[in-house]
């Protein structure tokens, strides 16, 4: 029973989705496998749109065969009619030929991403491949049940397929990819143990700053801010570590860069994300934050946004304001 073996191996590996949400990979594969409807599809998500995250691009540059092996293994396991590789536009231009020229048992089709960061969200990318507006879909139904063109669809991040391939080749050594950037000596993507702490990663890569600093981890827009004293934990989310020089940082510029990113890259569908972000950006641009208003909007973003993008907005803002902005003010 080859297929049982696939699930068992994924289960034993403990692999969870590397796009940031962390859903158990074996479970996703099994649900799609067990769906009775056909055709089925596999989608590999290489939209990678968040600042400070470059791991998927790195994988296509250095390990494209393993990534495609993972996709094809999934395709075979769920009996997919086709596998789509959903690529950020520059990656689409660079890799389409290479990928589509391969003769594979499951045909591989490259699709160019439209609509920015939001279109990396799994139900949104399905809308884009279907030719509709880049907006997230109502869940349930989940893509595993009714995904692309209403058919069972397995959507995984590029790194997830890369790791799945290593698991099935029995070469997986519990590593993951970290993108390190910012005020560091050695920017880049590093493959290291998935349990390593942020402090250890920075040290091992020769990137531990010798100045007063803080980091943003996970993703360069949605990730939380951690102080230099809080680095004895593993990296969450998409594996980004961005180092900031605390003295050099201009707080409102940094806040603005996040809020601007979300405002430009969201879909404008739901009220808190469309209007709430705008009102936060108004305050940041005036460098005058009314804390009541801010708390109100962050509350509604966190608790009422349609999709994970809106719900992720408060994290960097709250942690930055609490740990850096207000801390700085009291220190002054």
């Amino acid at each position, binding site marked *: 029973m080859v297929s049982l073996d696939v699930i068992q191996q994924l289960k034993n590996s403990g692999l969870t989705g590397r796009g940031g949400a962390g859903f158990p990979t074996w479970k996703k594969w099994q649900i799609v496998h067990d769906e009775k409807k056909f055709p089925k599809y596999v989608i590999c998500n290489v939209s990678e749109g968040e600042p400070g995250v470059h791991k998927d691009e790195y994988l296509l540059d250095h390990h494209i065969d393993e990534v495609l092996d993972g996709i094809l293994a999934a395709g075979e396991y769920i009996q997919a009619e086709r596998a789509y590789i959903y690529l950020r536009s520059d990656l689409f231009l660079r890799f389409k030929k290479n990928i589509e020229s391969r003769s594979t048992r499951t045909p591989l089709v490259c699709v160019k991403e439209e609509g920015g960061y939001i279109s990396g969200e799994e139900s949104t990318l399905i809308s884009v491949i279907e030719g509709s*507006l880049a907006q997230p879909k*109502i869940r*349930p139904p989940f893509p595993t049940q009714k995904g692309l063109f209403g058919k069972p669809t397995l959507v995984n991040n590029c790194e997830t397929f890369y790791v799945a391939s290593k698991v099935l080749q029995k070469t997986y050594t519990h590593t993951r990819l970290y993108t390190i950037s910012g005020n560091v000596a050695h920017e880049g993507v590093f493959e290291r143990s998935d349990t390593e702490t942020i402090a250890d990663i920075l040290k091992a890569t020769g990137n531990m700053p010798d100045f007063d600093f803080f980091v943003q981890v996970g993703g360069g827009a949605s990730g939380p801010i951690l102080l230099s004293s809080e680095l004895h934990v593993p990296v969450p989310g998409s594996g980004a570590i961005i180092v900031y020089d605390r003295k050099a940082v201009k707080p409102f510029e940094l806040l603005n860069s996040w809020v601007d990113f979300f405002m430009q890259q969201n879909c404008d*569908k739901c*009220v808190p994300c469309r*209007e*709430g972000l*705008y009102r936060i950006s108004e305050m940041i641009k005036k460098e005058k934050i009314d804390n009541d208003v801010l708390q109100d909007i962050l*509350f509604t973003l966190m608790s009422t946004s349609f999709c994970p993008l809106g719900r992720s907005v408060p994290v960097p803002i709250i942690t930055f304001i609490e740990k850096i902005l207000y801390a700085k003010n009291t220190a002054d």
Partner: protein
Amino acid sequence: MPKTQQTNVRCIIDGKDISVAAGTTILQAAKKTGIPVPTLCHHPDLPVSGSCRLCLVEIEGRDGLFASCTTPVEDGMVIRTASESISRARKINLELLFAQHTEECKDCVLQPNCTLLSLAREYKVPIARFQDRKKDYPVYQFGPSIQFDSRKCIDCGNCIAVCKKQGVGFLETKKHKTWHETMPSADKDKDCVYCGQCIVHCPVGAFEAVGEFEDVEQCLSDKSKTVVFQFAPSIRSSIGEEFGLPSGSIITEQLVGAIKALGVPYVFDTSVGADVTTIEEAGELVERLESGERLPMFTSCCPAWVRYVELHHPKYIPNLTTVRSPHIILGSIIKQFWASEQKLKPQDITVVSVMPCTSKKYEITREELFHGALKPVDYVLTTRELAFLLHKKRIDISKVKKQHSDNPLGIPSGAGVIYGASGGVMESALRTAYERITGKKLAKLDFTDVRGQKGIKRARVRINKKTVNVAVVNGLGNIHIIFDELAKNPHAYDYIEVMSCPGGCIGGGGQPIPTNQKIREQRAQSLYDIDYATSVRTAHENPFVQTLYAKFLSEHASELCYTTFSPSKKDKPKIIL
């Protein structure tokens, strides 16, 4: 598709034990139980969008809030529709909505039924914390029919969804700088047909018909003109809603009384014009059935449908019946026949049509309908506009003195009244065509197969030894089904009625808001009730119409009752503010 076995799930909402079919959303379950949950973007005609984030609820054991419109009930769920967090989130989201919506409450058609305003009051929303985000946004005008004030738009997407559902796709969302904006399409192959469904599906009054009530008010004070009103079949069972009456209330005589209370001396019933349309259209149908030419024949009294054909499917232009629509015919009869009886000059008469429709505002501008410089109809008021005018003059239609429409053009057959419901034109024409072909009276006048709210209705009618295949398209978005069938078999049908608005004119773009399936059913049923209660139920048996033909129409029908069509191009939307 085989029906899957329906299972029920149980949940508790605000302490009430409720059992609903699996797949039911929390919002549906709450509404079914009479538990109020505020909504703004939700419209039962449209797919759920979940954009306004007001219908929030809490689910025990789960973090955060959930939009009840997108969350299906699961077995054993314990749901709360009120809590401090829920109120706080609703209040903030309302405030954010309010801050993008530029209030124009004084002139707004939604007054006094504005959900946004009443929710703002209920949740004590502070209105002054933010500046209106959209205050410098444009106001668009589409043809002579519709205005889109994008300063009021809350980006819920209902207009885009309904425009797509109509098969028109003129409204779309487009990224412009930071925002995805709702706007008219720049695609030269996509144009507005003026059906006005965007208006009745907009929760905040951003869409409205081009107002003509000010012109009408001016005419009423101009003593050199004789102002004559006519009202469409469907108004009698819909306008009551604007005055708090239950939907479907039949108030024909109050309607006449109310219009007269505005100072209008003469009020006629467009259903009489419908009787004339029926007689002529049945005649044309019989001719085409005998010659076999230009079949299937399509109805053409819906100007949005006509525009759709002229824009996108000109090859079907020869198939449209050339008979004019009821209010245009009645307008000409008023200005030419009735005027001479009254010893009035046609140019001294102003005809105002009260219509359920926004595309009728466009129809009256079609020059092929003019008699020289004389327009059959001068102004079109929508149902809402007339109600607005009555409210303004403090005339309460539910309390006004009942009056009959004026003779000799005031008493229609039952067939003329059912014109307002989808299938009504077809049924009226069949009643008359049958008797014309067979020379016999119909044993049963009711063609129930063509009634109701289904998107496509088909029937086979035996007339003598021939089977006449008919279809009714209820909602413009369904026409592609018939076009596909005709592409395969051009002889699939002999006669096809098309009404752009769902439910026909009772669901028109000029009708009271809200309009939804249940309300459409009630408005339509009332028209059929009137038909049943009327002694004359066929157009050709209407004695008033018979006299009209004897005195005038037999001689003039060819010039007053027929029109032409031609291929048309996109009319670019204008920015008027």
